[in-house]
């Protein structure tokens, strides 16, 4: 094993802003630098795909070439006979009774069983001594398919004679869905929308379409499985939630969980796309079969088939408002395409429905969200998780209403903005700050970027800087046809796992003296996927334990679950767990101190004691003892689980229930230049304002907001997986044709951060990672509509939508 993840010592860095009066450097509120930052920028960071083991084999997956078919036969003989091939496995070779996996519903076969349900479904796996040998051997496996009718949309899924994507469903949603090709349905009924509609002076309706976005993380799926002497397996993998993987991997291997030891390896981004199992089980199966270490690395092409995508959606909305601009009611129907397997679809439905009204006060609502089973690519978690699709639609509606009422779109939103104490459609009260109107004010009050910057950039007026124009370096306009547009949007996202899920995290914190210095070690199973959790954990430990040196232990399954690095929850929940364990360690330290030194100073018994700068001090600042003297050669080591406030399931008929943990808000103003003749768009500026409760690391907060903003912009103007409706096959599984914004497409992103504490959360913090992804997309769309006068009910916008050509 050459590259086991190493413990990281997190540098304290240079404090840029101190909001906590702690003399311990590098505590919360400071922009301490990421331990992985320099390594990633210089190309030295070891990603999961960089792992190597002596004598290892390479695994390869053979995937279906058709979207829906019975498997008539599989012939692996030629592949097996290939020199250098150690194993070929199909469904028939699976070792355990359990042959499926899944986040909530175990409907996904480890290898296809008699049938494939989507293009790119794994059918067979091969291990060989060289990746190219494995690839060629896989290509020699002969599979005979008998194609089945395709289910590709709601009409084909729910037709009276529709083929069932999954026959014999026995999951806990089947009892309440209207058709077996619907994974889950969540209605929310509050008040009387029909009655309230009678009070409306204006009513607007719209049908909206949201395209399939990919997480497009840069580090493709990869990992290394090493068989161990006790018959178990060590798995090094890039994932978002080690323990969730573990719970799905062990049963299909036929092993108890303690024999599957998982360690997080370098993760190159996630955005939801690593919540589901990809190569984990396949690598373990091949390693256990061959008795050799097996590495699997997807290439970019395979990665597009190796993880779930954002649900594409069709949304129908109706809103009403009175003459004076007050919303009367909202009705909506959201149809999410979950693709062939359930993945996170039920939870995405819960989010889409419960957040469908957005950050507005609407008392009378009639809401329905469903997710379909189809033969399209499976869809699941992605940053924004159901709330993104809804926000795109309700924000378009807000602009339509404002236009119809001849009101300013920002003022109209502010007039209807929710605030602390507002009841959401689920009946849940928002019991922490909800500065929706203020966030809109902040983005609106910024000065607009200068006009015609392509002229200003040229020297002495002799040249046009095409980089400031739509089309950029492609040199398509020097100003001709270019029209500026401005648009606004605001969004509402939940934080943490909802609907009664036991969303806990675990942290083990150890404190000891090494070389005369007190050192804290933080051990969690938290997946660091780029969000900066390891930085924040060290900051929390410094603040709570008053030490300068903090070691972050590699994340593995030798400590309890940290839950998922998703739902904007990790700083809240695992951060909360680290804080909680640190507090327990601190109590032990003080107990030890009192035992040793209590008689020397009365303050040990009477004062509020803190750990600061390596010392025990009173709240008055008096030093009582060095931590090194208190601890001596004793180590304090505590592992504790920590939970946020519990939530409840939504009622299956009315959608009522305190389903969410916390809410998160962001607003955007987009300024775009549109070449109206060619239909090309340049986003000039995307100003964002967000309430973060408390910025534990202001630099990381900025990074999250800017990154989320850009990911939202991507699906406004370019990012889309295109699935052929006739074949249900993916047409653009490459970065040649799945376009991500480049730095030249990236607008300036000025950010206003509010820190209004949520009293229920650790340090008052609010989960931040997703909210900016919501409002960015509709703000860009609103700006393009503003520039072109077109209705644009679909995202992403393509040039032909703007030119009518």
């Amino acid at each position, binding site marked *: 094993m050459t590259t086991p993840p190493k413990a990281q010592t997190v540098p304290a860095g240079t404090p840029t802003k101190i909001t906590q009066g702690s003399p311990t450097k590098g505590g919360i509120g400071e922009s301490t630098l990421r331990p992985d930052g320099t390594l990633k920028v210089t190309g030295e960071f070891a990603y999961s795909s960089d792992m190597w083991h002596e004598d290892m084999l390479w695994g390869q997956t053979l995937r279906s070439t058709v979207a829906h078919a019975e498997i008539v036969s599989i012939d692996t003989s030629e592949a097996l006979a290939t020199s250098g091939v150690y194993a070929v496995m199909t469904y028939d070779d699976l070792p355990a009774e359990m042959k499926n996996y899944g986040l909530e519903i175990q409907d996904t076969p480890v290898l296809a069983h008699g049938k494939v349900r989507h293009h790119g479904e794994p059918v067979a796996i091969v291990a060989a001594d060289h990746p190219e040998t494995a*690839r060629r051997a896989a290509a020699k496996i002969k599979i005979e398919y008998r194609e089945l009718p395709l289910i590709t949309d709601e009409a084909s899924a729910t037709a009276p004679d529709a083929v069932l994507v999954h026959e014999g469903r026995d999951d806990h949603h089947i009892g309440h869905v209207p058709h077996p090709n619907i994974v889950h349905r969540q209605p929310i009924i509050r008040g009387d929308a029909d009655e309230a509609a009678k009070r409306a002076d204006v009513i607007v309706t719209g049908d909206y379409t949201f395209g399939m976005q990919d997480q497009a993380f840069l580090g493709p799926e990869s990992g290394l499985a090493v068989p161990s002497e006790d018959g178990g397996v060590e798995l090094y993998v890039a994932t978002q939630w080690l323990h969730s993987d573990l719970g799905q991997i062990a049963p299909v291997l036929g092993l108890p969980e303690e024999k599957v030891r998982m360690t997080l390896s370098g993760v190159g981004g996630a955005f939801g796309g690593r919540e589901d199992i990809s190569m984990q089980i396949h690598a373990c199966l091949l390693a256990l079969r061959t008795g050799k270490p097996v590495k699997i690395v997807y*290439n970019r*092409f395979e990665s597009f088939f190796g993880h779930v995508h954002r649900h594409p959606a069709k949304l129908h909305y109706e809103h009403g408002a009175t003459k004076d601009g007050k919303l009367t009611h909202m009705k909506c129907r959201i149809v999410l395409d979950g693709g062939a397997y359930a993945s996170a679809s039920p939870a995405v439905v819960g989010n889409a429905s419960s957040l469908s009204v957005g950050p507005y006060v609407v008392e009378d609502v009639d809401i329905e969200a469903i997710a379909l089973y189809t033969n399209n690519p499976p869809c699941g978690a992605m940053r924004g998780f159901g709330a993104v699709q809804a926000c795109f639609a309700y924000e378009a509606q807000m602009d339509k209403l404002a236009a119809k009422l001849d009101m300013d779109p920002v003022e109209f939103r502010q007039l209807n903005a929710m605030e602390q104490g507002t009841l959401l459609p689920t009946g849940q009260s928002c019991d922490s700050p909800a500065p929706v109107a203020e966030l809109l004010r902040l983005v609106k009050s910024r000065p607009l970027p200068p006009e015609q910057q392509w002229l200003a950039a040229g020297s002495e*007026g*002799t*040249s*046009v*800087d*095409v*980089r400031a124009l*739509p*089309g*950029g*370096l*492609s*040199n*398509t*306009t*020097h100003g*001709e*046809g270019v029209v500026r547009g401005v648009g606004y949007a605001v969004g509402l996202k939940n934080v943490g796992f909802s609907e009664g899920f036991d969303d806990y995290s675990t942290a083990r914190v150890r404190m000891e003296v090494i070389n005369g210095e007190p050192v804290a070690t933080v051990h969690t199973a938290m997946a660091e996927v780029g969000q900066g959790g390891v930085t924040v954990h060290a900051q929390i430990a410094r603040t709570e334990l008053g030490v300068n040196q903090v070691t972050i232990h590699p994340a593995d399954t030798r400590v309890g679950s940290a839950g998922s690095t998703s739902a904007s929850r990790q700083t809240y929940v695992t951060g909360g767990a680290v804080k909680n364990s640190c507090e327990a360690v601190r109590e032990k330290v003080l107990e030890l101190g009192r035992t040793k030194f209590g008689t020397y100073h009365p303050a040990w018994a009477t004062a509020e004691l803190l750990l600061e700068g390596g010392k025990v001090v009173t709240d008055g600042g008096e030093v009582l003892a060095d931590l090194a003297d208190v601890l001596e050669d004793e180590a304090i080591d505590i592992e504790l689980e920590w939970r946020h406030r519990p939530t409840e399931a939504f009622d299956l008929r009315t959608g009522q229930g305190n389903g969410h943990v916390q809410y998160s808000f962001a607003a955007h103003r987009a300024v775009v230049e549109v070449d109206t*003749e*060619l*239909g*090309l768009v*340049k986003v000039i500026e995307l100003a964002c304002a967000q309430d973060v409760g408390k910025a534990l690391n202001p630099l990381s907060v900025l990074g999250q907001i800017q990154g989320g903003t850009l990911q939202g912009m991507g699906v406004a*103007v*370019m990012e889309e997986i*295109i699935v052929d409706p006739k074949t249900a096959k993916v*047409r*653009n599984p490459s970065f*040649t*044709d799945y*376009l991500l*914004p*480049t*730095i*030249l*497409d990236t607008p300036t992103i000025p950010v206003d951060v509010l820190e209004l504490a949520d009293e229920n959360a650790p340090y008052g913090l609010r989960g931040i990672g997703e909210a900016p992804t919501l409002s960015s997309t509709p703000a860009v769309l609103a700006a393009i509509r503003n520039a072109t006068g077109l209705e644009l009910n679909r995202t992403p916008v*393509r*040039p*032909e939508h703007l*030119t009518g*050509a």
Partner: protein
Amino acid sequence: MDFLRPASWEEALAAKAEHPTAVPIAGGTDVMVEINFDHRRPEYLLDLNRIGELSEWEVGQESVRLGASVPYSSIMEHLRAELPGLALASHTVASPQIRNRGGVGGNLGTASPAGDAHPALLAADCEVEAESVRGTRLIPIDAFYTGVKRNALEPDELIRAVHIRKADGPQQYSKVGTRNAMVIAVCAFGIALHPETRTVRTGIGSAAPTPVRAKAAEDFLNAALEEGGFWENGKIITPAIAKQFAALASGACNPIDDVRGTAKYRRHAVGIMARRTLGWTWEQYRGAGRTLEGAA
């Protein structure tokens, strides 16, 4: 797969004669993608990287002899005055890393309709210097593209250089992609004014099975400019002429619907680019001030 590494041009020609199926590789920005995706698995790869002269260029009286492997970044840096259209096209090629590796020889060898250099080469007018052990010939660019990803090379021939007519007037290049940089063409348009011959030449990319010239548009414009005495009087081209030129350029397209764009959009966009690039080059010809060369 055998990897042939000739040390000289003569050795390369001999190798190609011996193994006519050998695929030449220089920058590898196209061939390696094809191999990595397993779209092709040639029996032989013929590595041209040891042949230094392929990365050199000579500026002559009439034309530039551009070595097949001269990277796009060099064209942008050193040949903007002589080959302004190709320099602009080079700037739209992929990323800086790719521009440091890829060259015009690769674009011609692959002959994809989406190759960024083609419209600029067609508009500037050039000849491809093809050579084999049998000898050298100059293939006019108009006769070079023979079908989708097919060209006029014989199996034993290699591209040694391209003889591109030096600019005698303004040239422009535009490309539509759905991203502001690093994007494959949805369609592209090149234009070159040739005041010496009082002609205008054009090139269209990604809007037909091969790169093509908008011949009817050129003929119309050449006649209209002659008739109106525009070359002499330097007057603004009338909107009616520009519009007709754009419509004819659009009509020269024979595009398809694909994942990157619709045929209808491609025709539309080529027309817009034709009208705009004609305006930019004509303004420059009239000496109205701005160079309008973009940021390339």
